[in-house]
């Protein structure tokens, strides 16, 4: 799993980080945060995609080995949120890269993100 912030307000990001800490401990599901896109299977994206971040996001996505999956975390990544019509951002994450799971919320609670991750795992099994 790789986390990339494409312009978020930090709200979703700290909830993603909170997932790693003792109360939620996502590692018990076999999910590990990886520092490099080349070692990651799942990309977790938070925030509206800013114009400046978009090319970088595409590069990161291309660097990941296949098969690869994308989780959009938070209202901004899913639909643009409050920044939808701002001049600096794309409307949605799936305009830029394909998305497998959407986790809405502003920000989603860590439990919700966890559920999103588990949904993805179920989707893979099916």
């Amino acid at each position, binding site marked *: 799993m790789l986390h990339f*912030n494409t312009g978020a307000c*930090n709200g979703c*990001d700290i909830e993603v980080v909170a997932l790693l800490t003792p109360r939620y401990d996502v590692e018990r599901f076999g999910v590990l945060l990886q*520092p490099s896109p080349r070692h990651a299977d799942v990309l977790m994206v938070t925030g509206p995609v800013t*114009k400046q971040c978009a*090319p970088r996001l595409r590069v990161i996505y291309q660097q990941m080995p296949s098969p690869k999956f994308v989780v959009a975390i938070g209202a901004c990544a899913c639909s643009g949120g409050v920044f939808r019509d701002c*001049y600096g951002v794309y409307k949605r994450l799936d305009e830029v890269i394909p998305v497998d799971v959407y986790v809405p919320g502003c920000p989603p609670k860590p439990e919700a993100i966890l559920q999103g991750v588990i949904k993805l795992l179920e989707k893979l099994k099916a």
Partner: protein
Amino acid sequence: MAMFEEAVSILKDNLGNDVLECKTPKPRRAYILVKLGCHRDAISLLLKQYEQTGISTITGTDLGSEIELNYHMRCGGAVTIKNRVPKEKPRIKTITDLLPGAAFYEREVFDLLGVMFEGHPNLKRLLLPDNWPKGAYPLRKDWKPQDVKSGVSDSEKNSETNGGELKEATSIVNVVVGPQHPALHEPERFSFKVDGEVVVDVEPRLGYVHRGIEKAAEHLMFFQDVHLVERVCGICNAAHTTCFSQAVEDIGGIDVPPRALYLRTIVHELNRIHSHLLLLGVAGLLLGYEALFQHVWRDREPIMDLIEMITGNRLMTAFNTIGGVRRDLDPNAAGKIKKTLEEVKKRANFYKVVFKEDPTLRLRTEGVGVLSKSDALKLCVAGPVARGSGIDMDVRKDDAYAAYEEIPFNVISYKECDSWARLMVRAEEVLESIDIVIYALEHLPSGRFRVRVPRRQPEGEAVGRVEAPRGELIHYVKSDGTAYPYRVKIRSPTLANIISFPTMIRGGYVADIPAVLGSLDPCFSCTDRMVFLDTQNDRRWYWSLEEIKPKKAK
């Protein structure tokens, strides 16, 4: 405050006829319009008189045929020095020679409004992408987002190659960190110039989180904007909403009930506790001390629970509104809050000891990333960064808002000026904040928690100032008498502080980069809401080994 009134009268007496207009609508707020070009005289006067004078930010506002530049000075309060330049050919003299800390603010105004600052050492883009069309200034009123929506797409290409120009390529190597990097939780790019293990210089490139909030705020109504500014930053959201609400309340002359002020204070301080704990944990992680990170974050969770209990959400509190707060405190909650805080206090005391005494932590942070007091004043840094360099500066004390006038607390400052001092300031502030919340709960006034306010606000302008977890936060709001603000300007503390990063890291080791960056507690989502960043001087030098060696703690 005496210093503030004195400062205003000094300006009036010395500038004489150059002062075109002077308004002091409330204590510690002054708006002084001076003749074009006289802003430098005014700022020099303040600097000569008061050592601690700094610049908070520069707001540019498009007035139609003119662009108004507001120099927000901090000098016992907020002294706003106004200048108007013709929009046809907006040029004005720089103040970076007087106050190097203004470098980024001038670049921001240049980037977003197209004002030329004559004599600025490095006037280039701060926030917008490098391939943004020339002559398109998003904060001018005649600019429409459609103009560029299709035009700008892949913006990074130029900056990638031009990012670190090397004048003489010898043993100096360019190391680019970010925007995606394991040590950074947010996308920013730093290009470090490295000679062996020694960092020679660094140029940060901001703008990866630039969304365009200030423009968006002009298209929403005042009460809607509260929720927009909340999303400037997910961590210090309560500070942003408090600040914005205060500014609008000043414009509308709205009296907020005392109970609301206390409730605001409580949520604001809980916000600070969680933010400081978050940073202390992340600092542990950056220093290679992961167990500390896990421990601190575990102890941060009860605070998140309290915020959820009081406001209904863990992070985005949506608690403040113009005229008060949106929900009252459950009478049974006070006991639970106090009990939880007592527990957290024990842990916070323990972490204070850890940061104070753990030899590994001290070795990694002591004498690393030094920012001397005089540099800190020149660069106009704010918050824990300033307090770590021995400057007693805290908006809660200097310009008391909400309920801080009535609540006793100490301003923590350290004289060591290094990364360790900046972390210690935060560790101790957690304890202070816990005491503030407990005091506020015990002295919570009864009565209403909100007054209804009209959607339309009268014509006017106001500066809101609060002490956010990362330092002084400023919102400048201008109203033209409708339900929509004419201009909203936000200056977050990280923008004030990041300018000091090159000074701190120059001459340090590559391995110290995370320690120094961590001690700054940068928050780029705040900073980039509009744009920018870069080192202001091209000078390079080496420090001798003696100067780099950690100084022994007293």
